[in-house]
């Protein structure tokens, strides 16, 4: 590979993958060595327990072949141990004296014993074996254990690999690596004959000198071309102009480069690590709050549990508009670091909280830090990208968040299972600290701003947008409930429901990670295919309906599969609708409210979306307290389906008009 930075990145990734794969392989081997004997031990324990029981009866003088209701005792043992196919008591000659089997294995004995692992325990009298208890476990049970083990290890491999890739990306955001990548990018572009100018890279040393030399050569060639073209025009030399145009087209001598700066990647690691800190708390936060919840007059227990989540989301939603200007004044990099430190104290406080009021206060502090980091990171990108490269810059930010959404819940769940919830919050604090350090090392100082700061969203903007029926239905019917179902059902109701069913945080974490997985895979794909404007409305409607229908899984399948399928379907549905929905907001805004700036329309959109994250858990908790959890989940699903269908009806024929609006833009 000619691009040496890419070669290093690829090789390091391959080496890491090989290392992680070796660890996974050894994990399966080690696990098989203890789990399969443990499975056999279960059968052995039951066989030995039953053999002692029968031996005791024989000691009382009951002959083996006269024992009454022995089959029933065996049947009870089968009912208690779902893994067993059958249990039998055989005498010395092999004659079966008592027998019970699971329904699927009623005729198993003598027919298909080869597909069984059998454990026998002798029934002894006076030191002589007079009979045996035989417990048969289907081979399929062991195969299922191994299959689940591989699935577990594969999930962890993906998670560890994603974290590793994010960390490697960070390694390439330190100044000398940025310089190296910048140089590689330049040489690679020149090799392709691409003479578009690159964004300048600040630094010193031989690499920086090389970058300057290359940039100077490119600038000189372009300037030469410009002067020559001017002269050709002065001379009216059509042939020369034609030749120069051909040359310019081939080598892109007259166009600018619309790529986000190489240094932008530096924001990715702090954002990933910071979001990882918060996402790690998803599997156990609702149960942790529940453990401290005390009744408050006039509020249901469910609402009390939801309070810290509602407060967190509300603070994040409503602080963001004012934080934009504030972080701009203080400096994005500095604000990001400040936000990480605030959240660090919030996590530490949450870990040590002893009652509900402390917990609420600490979660509020975390929310302030969270909102500050979010706004600062987004602002860092916006400040360093132009209109043409902003989408790619924001894509960098969004993909880091999605990767954190995928990795955070399983890691947090495992840590909470292994070390306890308080330790998991301390680990979140550690992640916030590492995010701070990454930001300190890698984030450049903020450039002087030459344009006035964008104004915050006003109430009048919100009213103007919501007065348009189509925009109202898009924002209130689709965007708002999609966030409500995500936070209210997936991140509030489901962890509580699964914990009540006895599932550990590690299992809950693996269920919740499916949302991040679906989004990470689907969003980039849908971004490409939904660009055809006429398709956007169907994508939004389909995504909304699919998301609303996802709640049915909770009623169709046993947990955790019902929850897992619901989260996966919501992830897929929102992966389908998120990008087209965001694009539609801009297009409908231009069509219906040409006087309102695009920034203003998107400000209203984000505000309403974030409001949904606070309203969701509040609404679920209210209905849950007043009726039942099932009613709350169904209400969320119905709200989404109805909202999406109403928007679909209101948008009939919108494709052509938005296309026109898009073309106008």
């Amino acid at each position, binding site marked *: 590979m000619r691009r040496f930075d890419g070669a290093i990145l690829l090789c390091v990734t391959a080496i890491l993958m090989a290392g992680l794969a070796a660890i996974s392989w050894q994990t399966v081997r080690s696990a098989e060595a203890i789990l399969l004997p443990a499975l056999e031990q279960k059968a052995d324990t039951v066989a030995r327990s039953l053999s002692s*029981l029968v031996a005791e009866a024989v000691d009382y003088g009951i002959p083996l072949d006269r024992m009454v209701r022995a089959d029933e005792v065996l049947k009870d043992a089968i009912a208690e141990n779902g893994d067993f196919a059958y249990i039998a008591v055989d005498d010395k000659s092999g004659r079966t004296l008592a027998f019970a089997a699971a329904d699927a294995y009623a005729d198993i004995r003598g027919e298909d014993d080869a597909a069984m692992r059998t454990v026998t325990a002798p029934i002894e009298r006076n030191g002589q074996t007079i009979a045996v208890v035989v417990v048969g476990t289907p081979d399929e049970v062991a195969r299922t254990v191994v299959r689940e083990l591989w699935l577990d290890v594969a999930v962890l491999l993906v998670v560890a690999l994603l974290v590793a890739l994010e960390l490697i990306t960070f390694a390439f955001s330190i100044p000398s690596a940025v310089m190296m990548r910048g140089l590689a990018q330049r040489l690679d572009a020149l090799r392709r004959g691409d003479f578009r100018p690159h964004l300048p890279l600040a630094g010193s040393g031989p690499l920086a000198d090389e970058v300057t030399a290359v940039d100077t050569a490119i600038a000189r060639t372009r300037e030469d071309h410009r002067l020559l073209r001017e002269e050709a025009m002065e001379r009216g030399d059509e042939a020369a102009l034609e030749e120069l145009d051909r040359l310019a087209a081939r080598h892109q001598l007259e166009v600018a480069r619309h790529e986000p700066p190489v240094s932008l990647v530096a924001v990715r690691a702090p954002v990933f690590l910071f979001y990882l800190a918060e996402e790690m708390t998803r599997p156990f936060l609702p149960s942790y709050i529940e453990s401290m919840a005390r009744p408050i007059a006039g509020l249901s227990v469910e609402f009390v549990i939801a309070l810290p989540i509602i407060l967190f989301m509300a603070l994040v939603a409503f602080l963001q508009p004012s934080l934009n200007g504030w972080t701009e004044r203080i400096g994005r990099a500095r604000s990001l670091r400040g936000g990480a430190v605030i959240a660090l104290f919030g996590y530490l406080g949450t870990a040590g909280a002893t009652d509900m009021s402390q917990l609420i206060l600490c979660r509020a502090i975390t929310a302030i830090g969270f909102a500050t980091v979010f706004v600062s990171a987004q602002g860092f990108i916006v400040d360093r990208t132009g209109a043409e490269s902003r989408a790619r810059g924001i894509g960098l930010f969004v993909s880091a968040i999605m990767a954190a959404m995928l990795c955070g819940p399983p890691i947090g769940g495992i840590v909470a299972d292994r070390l306890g919830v308080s330790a998991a919050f301390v680990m979140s604090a550690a992640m916030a600290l590492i995010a701070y350090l990454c930001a300190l090392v890698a984030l450049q100082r903020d450039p002087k701003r030459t344009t006035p700061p964008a104004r915050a969203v006003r109430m009048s903007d919100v009213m103007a947008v919501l007065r348009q029926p189509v925009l109202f239905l898009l924002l209130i019917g689709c965007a708002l409930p999609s966030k409500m179902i995500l936070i209210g059902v997936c991140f509030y109701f489901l962890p509580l429901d699964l914990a009540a069913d006895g599932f550990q945080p590690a299992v809950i974490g693996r269920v919740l990670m499916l949302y991040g997985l679906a989004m990470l895979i689907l969003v980039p794909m849908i971004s490409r295919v939904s660009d055809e404007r006429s398709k956007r409305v169907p994508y939004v409607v389909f995504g909304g309906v699919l998301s609303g229908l996802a709640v049915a899984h909770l009623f169709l399948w046993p947990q955790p599969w019902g929850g897992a399928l619901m989260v996966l379907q919501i992830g897929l549905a929102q992966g389908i609708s998120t990008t087209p929905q965001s694009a539609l907001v801009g297009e409908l805004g231009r069509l219906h409210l040409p006087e309102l700036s695009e920034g203003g329309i998107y400000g209203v959109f984000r505000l309403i979306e974030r409001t949904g994250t606070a309203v969701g858990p509040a609404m679920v908790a209210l209905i849950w307290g007043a009726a039942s959890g099932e009613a709350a989940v169904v209400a969320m699903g119905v709200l989404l389906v109805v909202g999406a269908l109403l928007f679909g009806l209101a948008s009939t024929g919108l494709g052509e008009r938005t296309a026109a609006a898009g073309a106008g833009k």
Partner: protein
Amino acid sequence: MGKLSLTLLVVLFPLLAASLALGAYLNYASVRNSYIEMVGTRMQTVARRVASDAQVALSMGMPLAGQNALERLLTREAAADPMIRSVDVVAADGTVLFSSDPVRRGTREQESDPMAERRMASIVSAFDTTEGLVVTRASRPALDAALARAGGGILTVAVAALSLAALAIAIVVVLAVRGLTRRLTDRAATAAGEEVPAEMVPVIAEIDEAHAAIRSRWAASRPPATGS
């Protein structure tokens, strides 16, 4: 360029170690959870079975403290599984009424016991009142010994993977930077006299030559028109 290699390696090594350590930890913790869950289910089954027998006796009017026959059952259940430390029947006030371990009889049940992994089942009367608990205690040292074997295997592979990966990454970085150095030290001058990496020269020369050809065409003809 040596400094660049060193900087990259100084940053990459800790990240590599952190990534592999995270992978090893997550895998070990997952195996540990599966194993403890499996043993716990076994202990829970034993506890439920004993609780069920005690409930039958309760329903016949025999108070829990008077169910002396449970003693034999507890001994039998404990003997059936080498992992079990004790199976206890605990009264509602926390006193151990019967135990497979005679020493524990009459003692107070400890909720946290560093030597045991506990699983419980309630003994509920026909009137739905909890009369006591059956507590099965698995030996923590035995559990830890089994997990230590699994953990040891994962740790060994993780350390070996880390060493090999560190070596491989060092080779990759050194070779890549050496390649870069070679490319950068192989220099040539453009037509304008700029010293740039030689690989850039042909593409710059292509444009320079095209420009020069136009200029020479103009030089061979007449000077530019200066307007009317």
